[in-house]
């Protein structure tokens, strides 16, 4: 951050009249030069570095003295030593599924009949006004996590980019979500039992199918009529470890129970919420389980969350747990993810660790080709006016798949309408 003084003294202002194109992606090549690049990759932090982008992908990352003799690009951006990071990846939100929470017609995030096959990505709205606003926080993609019906398994998450394009859904049905813990009605034991039983039944069915596979041809034909159901297919993906299982759980006992299930069924488990994870951080680290949690929840909001604390992210990372920082629940202010990461830093987390917690750790957990500035990765990039976690900082430019994104939201249009001088009613100002 040696250049902070210089950077803040310069005024980079986005001009009001931006040239706007259609949503057709242009395969423009870009060279971002003279940047302080937080790669969140092997190269670490590079100063006065150059990042090359072509066809929506990062094609080269050069340190100060590594730039080849001859290079060209359609657009060259002098970053003026500002910080370039991978686009932040939000998690645990309802982006594009809910426009206004209190308006039932705009809520597509849950369904009473939702079960393991619930695919809310079909309802995703890339034109939601929340998306443009989220971009202002450097968010380029999101793991959207619907909440489902009455089943313990509530559906599947999906991944989107924030381009606002109709092809924004990158990965539909990418992880199964289960919700454990305190239950207003009945016992939490039932949920755990149900989950365990469903996995066990699926495992038995799989073993049976394997047996049939190995048996005589005639028997095989007889059995072929029994094709697995849709939910069985998903359960099988869980059992093979192909598909992550995101489990909401706060109380340590629930977390331990999940770790047992992981071991028993070889699950690719990711803990979400995890307020009391600090009580069992060593066990979580040993099980190599990623924790997706808030960095700012510090109130004992329930009897399952008595250990909420601002230092939880630091404690878990110190114990060797890989953490994903998520802002929780609603989607209206996911742009503030960067501040939550800043709070984590203020409470003992290394800045690079916090940056990974909103970029690479998410990408690694969900097999996304983003979250790092490295060759071959999607060119989801953010150029910041200064320290990305700092409140005084703003996003100066953003690319998703190498396409420059507007940083204007509905809120900007509203504010502008009410601050310009006019002798006509505001409604005529557009």
């Amino acid at each position, binding site marked *: 951050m040696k250049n902070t003084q210089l950077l803040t003294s310069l005024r980079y202002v986005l001009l009001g009249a931006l*040239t706007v194109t259609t949503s057709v992606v242009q395969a423009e090549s870009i060279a971002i030069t003279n940047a302080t690049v937080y790669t969140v990759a092997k190269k670490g932090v590079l100063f006065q570095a150059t990042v090359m982008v072509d066809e929506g992908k990062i094609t080269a990352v050069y340190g100060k003295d590594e730039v080849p003799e001859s*290079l060209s690009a359609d657009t060259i951006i*002098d970053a003026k030593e500002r910080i370039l990071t991978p686009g932040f990846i939000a998690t645990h939100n309802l982006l594009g599924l809910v426009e206004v929470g209190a308006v039932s017609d705009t809520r597509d995030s849950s369904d009473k009949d939702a079960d393991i096959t619930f695919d809310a990505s079909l309802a995703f709205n890339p034109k939601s006004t929340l998306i443009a606003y989220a971009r202002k926080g450097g968010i380029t993609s999101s793991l959207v996590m619907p909440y489902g019906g009455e089943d313990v398994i509530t559906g599947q998450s999906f991944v989107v980019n924030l381009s606002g394009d109709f092809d924004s859904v990158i990965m539909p049905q990418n992880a199964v979500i289960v919700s454990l813990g305190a239950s207003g009605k009945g016992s939490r034991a039932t949920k755990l039992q149900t989950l365990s039983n469903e996995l066990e039944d699926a495992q038995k069915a799989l073993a049976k199918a394997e047996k049939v596979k190995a048996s005589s041809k005639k028997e095989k034909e007889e059995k072929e009529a029994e094709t697995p159901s849709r939910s069985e297919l998903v359960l099988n993906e869980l059992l093979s470890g192909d598909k992550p299982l995101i489990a909401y759980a706060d109380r340590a006992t629930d977390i331990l129970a999940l770790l047992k299930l992981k071991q028993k069924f070889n699950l690719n488990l990711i803990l979400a919420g995890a307020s009391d994870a600090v009580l069992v951080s060593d066990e979580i680290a040993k099980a190599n389980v990623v924790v997706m949690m808030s960095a700012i929840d510090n109130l004992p909001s329930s009897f399952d969350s008595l250990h909420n604390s601002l230092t939880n992210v630091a404690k878990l990372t110190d114990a060797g747990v890989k953490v994903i920082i998520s802002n929780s629940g609603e989607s209206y202010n996911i742009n503030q993810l960067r501040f939550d990461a800043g709070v984590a830093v203020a409470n003992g987390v290394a800045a690079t660790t916090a940056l990974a917690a909103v970029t690479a750790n998410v990408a690694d957990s969900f097999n996304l080709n983003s979250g790092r500035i490295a060759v071959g990765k999607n060119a989801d990039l953010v150029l910041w006016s200064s320290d990305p976690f700092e409140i005084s900082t703003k996003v100066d430019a953003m690319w998703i798949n190498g396409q420059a994104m507007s*940083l204007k939201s509905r809120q*900007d249009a509203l504010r502008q309408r009410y601050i310009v001088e006019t002798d006509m009613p505001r409604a005529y100002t557009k």
Partner: protein
Amino acid sequence: MLSLGLTACLPNEKQDAKVVINKNPYPSTYQALPSESTLLTNATILTGTGERINNGDILLVNGKVTQVGNNLSVEQATVIDMKGKWITPGIIDVHSHLGVYPNPEVESHSDGNEMTSPNTSEVWAEHSVWPQDPAFQAARAGGITSLQILPGSANLFGGRGVTLRNVPSETMQGMKFSGAPYGLKMACGENPKRVYGSRKVLPSTRMGNVAGYRSAWLAATEYKRDWDKYDSDYSAGKNPDAPKRDLALDTLMGVLDGEILIHNHCYKAEEMAVMIDLGNEFNYHSGTFHHAIEGYKVADLLAANGNCAAMWPDWWGFKMEAYDMVEENVAIVDAVKNSCAVVHSDSATTIQRLNQEAAKVMYRANENGFALKEEDAIKWITANAAKSLGINDEVGSLEAGKNADVVVWNMNPFSVYAQAEQVFIDGAKVYDRFDDKYQAKSDFLLGQQLDNHVSKVVTQLEKKSATNPATHPAIKPANKK
């Protein structure tokens, strides 16, 4: 005066300050938009007074119509040739729920019907108006310059309606038609008896409806008597106790005092007759009957009693009281001497084409023996509507001295192809079909459909560096074709 009274009558008793009901606690802050003197020439003008002027001119100065006629010649006015165009007064809708049932039609926006008691005279529609309802803009593009926002029809007494100027504003007060009388929404027939009957509360029948009205008017009559007595005693120098304020009865007393006009959702002939008698029983005027689908059956009675009837040309059939529709209803009501036939919308879409609604009536009636012309039919959505709302001294017709509320149409407005091209309110242009500058956009819609992508945003951001060599001399701009 006070001390004189005291000395004269009761030298020993000191009067308390007089209790006075503030009848205008949410006053209009409407101000006309900027305007300039304008002479519109060579148009076909329907004045709203039954007159048609071919090749006519109209002069708008300081927000008023100052002259209407042929071959006007003035200095110091912008002259706009309107050859081929038609000019009418601003269109007025007497029955609208814009702002109280706005778009988008979501539960959070449902503010038009206080369905909690058969008598909610204490509620005022103006307190529910969302000025950012995009439908106000759409209505303006249809030539609507004034409109009455009414509460819904679930209750016997739905509350007060408010008359608005159709200008963009952040506040209801900024739209409020200054000096327009309040309206009291009443409802006859099927709605109240259904809503409360299903709750086992009076009314569950039409006779229950009328019992409900009569009980309320009885209470209002006593309330008024108390206030009148208080006023006269006070004037006489006594120091009486003021009656206890009652918001619902304040509204009903306003009707008894002739200050608030009745707007009565009432479809059926026999019910309108009962409502007229009800007004006579309690000594108030029964005002305008809205949705008067059976108005044609009692056209004489309505005219004799001075009632306006606000009607659709062709809405019908959705309930028994809407079953006896005839498309000539408005024309039949209109044909009687001293009548007041109005075409209304009750709809955020129909309000955008009230000219077509009037046209439907005119043409169907003419096919069936009437001889109506455009200059007659325009009154149904201008002058008669203004009369119904008690604002006809100011708007509703194009006459010298009236407010310059003007619509310029690209052709005969009784054509399905007609479009309002320009709309003026108080002489100020508030809408222009061909000029984005005069096309207001609601805050709600602002920024809803932003373009997500930008090109060259960074180039603009870095304008200076674009002219300088890049920091790394090795990197060159690619050759463009």
